[in-house]
């Protein structure tokens, strides 16, 4: 009898575990209306659009919060109207007037007006510990002057008056950034606790007017969006539910894609992507990322790098093709200027190639016929393009070794690496720079203008004429003159700069054949609003 009871209990348990059909208690939207994107989203810190600065959270916010203007997916050179139907720029590039569309609805059903835009700007500059705030404060808008800088003469007009001229191209591209994703001020104000500007509430709820709204962000587990039924800025998307399960391991991401548990895998390694090519069930879609991986050389800490010939010798010593073809397996493209492909001002010329003999001759000319020794600082994790930073450092060491330069690799955790780099204490550093806002200014400034205390400053390269040129180009509209200035900036950087650009990585998606009409770019991410699923 006892055995019978035990048997029945065990049988019931097994039946429950294996017989349960998960779909029975599924939410309203089924697989055809759901997209599952396997990715590592552990970096998400906040889903409050004014606080979000990490990849996972800004991409999710991008689809929940409409902005004044927007970049069409796939074209990051011109903004198009979104919440603002038109705008005027004053001749001195200091005053921007946005004319808002009427009748835009937030997911709550509230109507979007200029008051919401003003509240959004107030949040950006007032939220404490805001990693994204500098995008706005760099233009001179801060907590003290936001009331005068961002005003609304009527409920559908916003005037932004900057204290200093700021490049219209850069300004408008920042206006497309989720940092100024417009929040529903009435809803958010109703959820303010302890003067937190509603920030705690916005981590688990959304209050935007984009095509999707937040269902749940379960930290370290998933971010889940559902269609915003009040969305009226465009046609209702066919995909009603978007889920990012947090899968850190790329092997497991690939498994989930193969089993059909994920429709798209976003973090596969270069070799995993290469092995997928040719499999009819999947497509590998690639587009150049707006970022670059470079070798930085400190021009004060290493005496040899004070000589331009030595900087050039390093650039001639590197086997760019070997890095792209062998290490990256095609998951990157050549880039030697400071503006990546896909942006205004991109220069496709590649003045350097692997020429050890020329590198040696330059070293001799500079007075270093026997080479020299320097530390090469690299991170312990992944380099851009899905390869190990250690492998890339080893390749650079090998290439430099061939011309007599001894690079002693020091691999440290990336936080430690950046702390050292930011303190101007490196000799050589292997690092990556990626886009904040899609304008050439976002790249020319850090690489060229040392007064920004960014990359050029970290390598102690204080080039005043270049800084002036960068400043001048930054304050111009996208005209042929601006293009000519960036050509000049690129030229100075490649000839004299302490940055050896190694490659521009690709953003690669492994996509199931169930997904059709997928478009994406490195700023908007995947266009969930237009894709369909079989």
């Amino acid at each position, binding site marked *: 009898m006892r055995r019978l009871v035990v048997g029945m209990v065990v049988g019931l348990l097994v039946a*429950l575990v294996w017989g349960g059909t998960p779909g029975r208690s599924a939410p309203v939207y089924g697989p055809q209306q759901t997209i599952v994107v396997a990715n590592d989203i552990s970096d998400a810190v906040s889903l409050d659009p004014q606080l979000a600065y990490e990849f996972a959270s800004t991409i999710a916010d991008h689809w929940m919060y409409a902005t004044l203007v927007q970049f069409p997916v796939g074209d990051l050179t011109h903004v198009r109207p979104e919440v603002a139907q038109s705008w005027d720029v004053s001749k001195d590039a200091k005053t921007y007037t946005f004319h808002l569309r009427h009748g835009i609805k937030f997911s709550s059903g509230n109507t979007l007006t200029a008051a919401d835009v003003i509240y959004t700007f107030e949040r950006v500059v007032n939220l404490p510990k805001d990693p994204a705030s500098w995008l706005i404060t760099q233009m001179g808008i801060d907590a003290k002057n936001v009331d005068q800088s961002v005003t609304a003469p009527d409920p559908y007009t916003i005037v932004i008056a900057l204290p200093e001229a700021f490049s219209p191209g850069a300004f408008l591209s920042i206006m497309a950034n989720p940092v100024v994703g417009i929040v529903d001020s009435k809803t958010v104000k109703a959820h303010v606790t302890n003067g937190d500007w509603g920030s705690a509430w916005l981590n688990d709820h959304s209050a935007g007017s984009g095509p999707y709204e937040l269902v749940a962000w379960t930290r370290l587990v998933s971010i889940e969006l559902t269609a915003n039924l009040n969305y009226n800025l465009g046609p209702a998307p066919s995909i009603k539910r978007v889920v990012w399960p947090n899968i850190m391991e790329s092997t497991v991401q690939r498994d989930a894609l193969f089993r059909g548990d994920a429709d798209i895998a976003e973090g596969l390694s270069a070799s995993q992507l290469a092995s997928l090519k040719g499999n009819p069930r999947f497509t590998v879609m690639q587009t150049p990322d707006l970022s670059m991986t470079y070798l930085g050389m400190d021009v004060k800490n290493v005496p040899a790098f004070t000589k331009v010939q030595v900087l050039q010798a390093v650039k001639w010593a590197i086997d760019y093709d070997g890095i792209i073809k062998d290490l990256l397996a095609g998951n990157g493209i050549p880039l030697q200027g400071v503006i990546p492909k896909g942006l205004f001002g991109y220069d496709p010329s590649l003045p350097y190639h692997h020429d050890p003999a020329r590198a040696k001759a330059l070293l001799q000319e500079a007075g270093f016929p026997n080479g020299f020794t320097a530390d090469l600082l690299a991170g312990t994790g992944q380099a851009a393009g899905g390869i190990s930073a250690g492998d890339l450092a080893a390749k650079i060491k090998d290439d430099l070794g061939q011309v007599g330069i001894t690079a002693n690799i020091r691999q440290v955790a990336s936080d430690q690496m950046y702390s050292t780099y930011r303190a101007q204490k490196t000799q050589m550093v292997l690092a990556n720079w990626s886009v904040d806002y899609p304008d050439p200014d976002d790249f020319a400034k850090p690489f060229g203008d040392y007064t920004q205390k960014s990359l050029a400053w970290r390598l102690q390269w204080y080039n005043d004429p270049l800084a002036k040129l960068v400043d001048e180009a930054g304050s111009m509209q996208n005209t042929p003159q601006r293009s000519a200035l960036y050509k000049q900036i690129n030229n100075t950087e490649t000839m004299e700069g302490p940055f050896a650009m190694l490659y521009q990585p690709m953003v690669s998606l492994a996509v199931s054949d169930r997904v059709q009409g997928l478009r994406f770019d490195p700023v908007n991410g995947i266009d969930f609003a237009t894709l369909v699923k079989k």
Partner: protein
Amino acid sequence: MSRYLARRGFLALFVIFGVTLITFVISHVVPADPVVAYLGDHAPPDLVVKVRAQLGLDRPLPEQYVIYLGGLIRGQLGVSIMDQRPVSTDIAEYLPATIELSTFAMLFAILIGIPTGVVSALHKDRWPDQFSRIFALGGVTLPVFYVALLLLGVFYFALGILPGPGQLSTYTAPPPRITGMVAVDAVLAGNWWAFGDALRHLVLPSFVLGYASAGLITRMSRSSLLEVMRQDYVRTARAKGVRERRVVIRHGLRNALLPTVTVIGLTYGSLLSGAVLTETIFSWPGIGRYATNSVTSVDVPAVLGVTLVIAIIYSLANLVVDVLYAYLDPQIRYT
């Protein structure tokens, strides 16, 4: 017994104080800047200075430690730099998932480890013993990530009979959060589909996490059972004509369990704190994942909070083991 518990509790306070001091010092001397880790590499230096002051990290280290201890005395673990929530809220969110996983892992380990150890002892040096030795050796020596990826590859990727990472499938609506343990919450909500899905999702990670402990338990039960079976009272029992099964279970196993309980208790503590790799591979939102994230992002308050909680868990596990000793062995009495 109560005097003993009070003394142990008092000693545990010292241990915990020591842990906070050591962790605090270590996490502040590592050459990485928590403010830069939080703001990102692009943050301009003036923003870094501003946020450092907002976080109170510009104050002298002793002052920061005193502030931290003051918070601890008031029951506050501080606020996480990365997600700006109280660390206690974060731990309360992540710990249940780890307790759920570790408990299942422990069950696996006990259910596999003790019978395997018994069989192994009863068939000493014959093929079941050799087999169990290989099994136990695998548990102790094979890297967790290797076992995890191998089992995922076989049971999820190739055969498709067990689900992949996560606690629930994408199309299973999660039960309302009550305890934070999905399987338990599903039962409490009466959602049997979610319960079944949660149990299926528990199978692989708990096996992977429990495998190393199962190996230890196997070896420990084997050796202690062998030891016990050589005792006079076992021979007496046999001489009395007691059935062999009863001899093994009543006279052998109960006495052999004592050292095994020590291993189980200590292993449970290490399971709770050592689930880092398993949780990473299986996308399990537990304290291990939280700890990894906190360490890699130099989130000092979170690291301190997690370390403290783990220290408390270890102290408690040790205490529970000692108390269980008294229960299992009437000769042991604490005063």
